[in-house]
């Protein structure tokens, strides 16, 4: 089971710890100030007192999203917009197979680029190694631990050891917050 929380935020970079505390306190039904959150040496936040509760967070300028699961998890989100540097980034950092997938057709290249990109980021965040894992050393196209979806103008990828099926309500719980968690 994966719980996903998405929230519009004014200044997400500043508030990601507040957001993490809020979603974890909802999930664990404990006071948010009681949660002891630390970061690994690679920067992945974790709960000291709940080793079997896994979570991860991602933010853009105006959105923040988090995922909680009983298995290790990584989540990445990007806003869907033109990416003028996508060709160069792909040539330099993606595998040949991924480049072929993105550029084999003229239409929707930006979208396919973001699909591959968010899958890469979700994977390295799941592994917990961040940028220590070189992007061209693994291929994310046929990895069924990773799923990708779209919500409004955002694209999301999640990497997890759970079997995930977007169409199956049992695998997911979505929470779109209407009231700001920062209030």
């Amino acid at each position, binding site marked *: 089971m994966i719980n996903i929380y998405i929230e519009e935020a004014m200044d997400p970079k500043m508030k990601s710890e507040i957001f993490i505390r809020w979603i974890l306190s909802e999930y664990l039904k404990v006071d948010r100030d009681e949660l002891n959150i630390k970061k690994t040496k690679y920067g992945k936040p974790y709960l000291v007192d709940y080793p079997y509760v896994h979570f991860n967070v991602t933010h*853009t300028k105006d959105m923040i999203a988090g995922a909680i699961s009983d298995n290790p998890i990584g989540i990445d989100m990007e806003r869907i917009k033109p990416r003028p*540097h996508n060709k160069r*980034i792909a040539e330099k950092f993606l595998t040949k197979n991924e480049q072929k997938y993105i550029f084999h057709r003229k239409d929707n290249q930006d979208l396919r680029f973001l699909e591959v990109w968010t899958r890469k980021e979700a994977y390295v965040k799941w592994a917990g190694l961040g940028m220590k894992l070189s992007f061209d050393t693994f291929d994310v196209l046929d990895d069924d631990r990773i799923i990708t979806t779209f919500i409004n103008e955002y694209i999301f990828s999640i990497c997890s050891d759970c079997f995930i099926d977007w169409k199956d309500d049992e695998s997911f719980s979505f929470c779109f917050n209407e009231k700001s968690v920062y209030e």
Partner: protein
Amino acid sequence: MDNFLELISEILEVEEVSMDTDFRNDIEDWDSMKGFAIICMVDDEYDIQIDVPTFLKLKTVGDIYNKAMGK
């Protein structure tokens, strides 16, 4: 130097940057994709290859400039 700052601000999607800009903290919409775009730009424009571990140690736009100048 002006051209360098222009290329950086275009990638960071801001009006202007200075050598002192701490890109990870001062740029509201900073993310790792922008970092990869900067690495590509420095390679294409200055023929200098910055690897990811080295880039992760850079803090300001001036640090990137010095690398691009081969310092």
